[in-house]
């Protein structure tokens, strides 16, 4: 665990409410993201995870405040802001025109003057990003002709090529096989170690449990924010998933296992064998 240094937050938001098509998706909440930290946003489907991420990426109109690197969102010129904050969305690309290399080069757009050809620094950044995601081999193939996992790695490289201080990722592990999920984990840890504030919405709880900080969401609110090492964070996690989650510690690493409704009753009866590892959480009488 990294100790939290008294930096000013890389990204800070105070949402009063966020409504989409007349429906309130996010209620009042506050969030501060520290530089050099990897934060994972987790929660059940429909909790508002992606909406929160889009909100702090400035992609959705909301009532509230948003500060990037200590500066109000509205005060940022578009290009400067684009250099400071990189975004990796979910299922957005339809491009079958551009090659992987050209796609990653788009990450350098905020660094380039209007219509100026890419500089050697741009090419170097693209190379580095594509090597980090092991996507350099298909640089000349059109994005639309790549498999889901390959495409995801190219899009990740595109976000990395921005070399921003804040990196927001929505479901970055989609389509990635386990070895590449592990690569992603190492990559994110490396980024955080170099001072980047990394934020990702994750469905893969086992990956999320390795983050520096967990934001546990439910029904448009943040239930808890803290290190997964802390018992109250894990308790909140089990709570928002309706207690249908076993959290097991294996070799110093927390794992989340789905629990079937029958198993839940068994847990309630406190009769699961590796009981010492399973968190005894508040169990309502059934």
């Amino acid at each position, binding site marked *: 665990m990294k100790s939290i240094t008294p930096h000013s937050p890389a990204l800070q938001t105070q949402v009063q409410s966020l409504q989409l098509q007349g429906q309130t998706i996010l209620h009042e909440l506050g969030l501060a993201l520290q530089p050099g930290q990897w934060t994972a946003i987790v929660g059940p489907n429909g909790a508002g995870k992606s909406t929160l991420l*889009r909100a702090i*990426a*400035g*992609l959705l109109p909301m009532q509230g405040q948003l500060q990037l690197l200590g500066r109000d969102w509205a005060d940022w010129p*578009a*290009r400067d*802001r*684009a*250099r400071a*904050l*990189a*975004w*990796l*969305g979910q299922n*957005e*690309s*339809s*491009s*079958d*025109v*551009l*090659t992987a*290399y*050209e*796609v990653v080069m*788009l*990450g350098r*757009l*905020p660094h*380039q003057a*209007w*219509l100026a050809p890419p500089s*050697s620094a741009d*090419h*170097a950044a693209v*190379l*580095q990003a594509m*090597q*980090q995601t*092991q996507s*350099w081999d298909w*640089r*000349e193939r*059109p994005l639309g002709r790549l498999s889901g996992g390959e495409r995801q790695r190219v*899009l990740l490289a*595109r976000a*990395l090529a*921005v*070399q921003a201080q804040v990196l927001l990722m929505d479901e970055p592990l989609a389509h990635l096989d386990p070895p590449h999920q592990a*690569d992603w984990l*190492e*990559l994110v*840890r*490396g*980024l955080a*170690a*170099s001072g*980047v504030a990394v934020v990702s919405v994750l469905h893969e709880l086992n990956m999320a449990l390795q983050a520096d900080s967990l934001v546990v969401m439910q029904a448009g609110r943040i239930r808890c924010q803290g290190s997964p090492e802390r018992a109250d964070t894990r308790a909140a996690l089990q709570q928002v998933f309706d207690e249908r989650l076993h959290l097991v510690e294996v070799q110093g690493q927390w794992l989340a296992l789905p629990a079937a409704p029958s198993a839940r009753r068994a847990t309630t009866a406190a009769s699961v064998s590796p009981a010492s590892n399973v968190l005894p959480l508040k169990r309502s009488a059934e």
Partner: protein
Amino acid sequence: MDGALPAQPGAGSEAMMLIPSHHKPLVLLLALALLSSLLVLLGVAVGSTGFSWSWLNSSEPVQEQILWQIRLPRSVGAWVAGGLLGLAGAVAQGLFRNALADPYLLGASSGAGLGVALLLVLAGTSPAAASLWLRMGLTGAAFLGAVGAVLLTLILARGVEQTMRLLLAGVIVGVVLGSATTLMILMAPDIMRPMQAFVMGSTGFLGWNSVLIMAPLLAVCLLTALGSSRALDAMTLGESTAASLGVRLPTIRLILIAVLALATGAAVAQAGLIAFVGLVAPHLVRSRLHCTHSWLLLLSALTGGALLLAADILARWLVAPQELPVGVVTTVLGGAYLLWPMHRKPLLENRA
């Protein structure tokens, strides 16, 4: 920002050499330029008597007159009009991130049609009215109609914030203005015949003045679109990603819609409603190579020009000394081109 993964050994120095090169678009560019020049030559040679090569180095004043004042401006005009449509098609497909988008998407065609119908009703169709003056008036009416329809679409969509609203508003404007035109034809059946020439598209009226109007517009539209080409590239990654890269989406959309309206309006005003050129030209380019929008826009314009000029030559030659409406030729050719892969694909999938 050092990543956690070790860089592959030696990759750094190799990288600069491995950067994808851009010679393929350049080859296509030169090929299209060559093809276009050849087509202009053909277009000058073909007439109501079929191909007449001897005319090309004739010094007879009548033949020279026909070559320089009728066939050459018509051929060049057809090329420029096709270029405008090809460019507009590429812009529309990039802007709406849809390979089926065409220049008439925002109601430009129905607007132009309504403009022409209105003027015909007002001016009457007496022989005296079929003058050069009316001809120019019709051009103006078609242009104003096309641009007006796009503006109406923008108003109905309440700006350019949402692509979906724009598309929907475009469809509505197209349908409503189209039925207004139909109603006018119903009430004043006399305008039916002159309307037909417009609806089917015609390159027969293109003269040097048409070229003088369209060519600068093509240059301006092409340069403006090229200036937005990187934003178009970014938009292929989704609007959120483009916005995160600092692309000012509303501004870019407004610029590109202006290009779309101007290019389409100019082409439609001079050559009528020519179908499929704007839709097919970008497809043809993409079927040849994968490239960024800067190349796609340029090559689509050149392809559109070559396409319409080729169609014009066919229209003049196929049933000489008669002439087919050029719009009919582009529709048949374009339809066949789009149907061909569709016809082939199910067979391949069944075999697999």
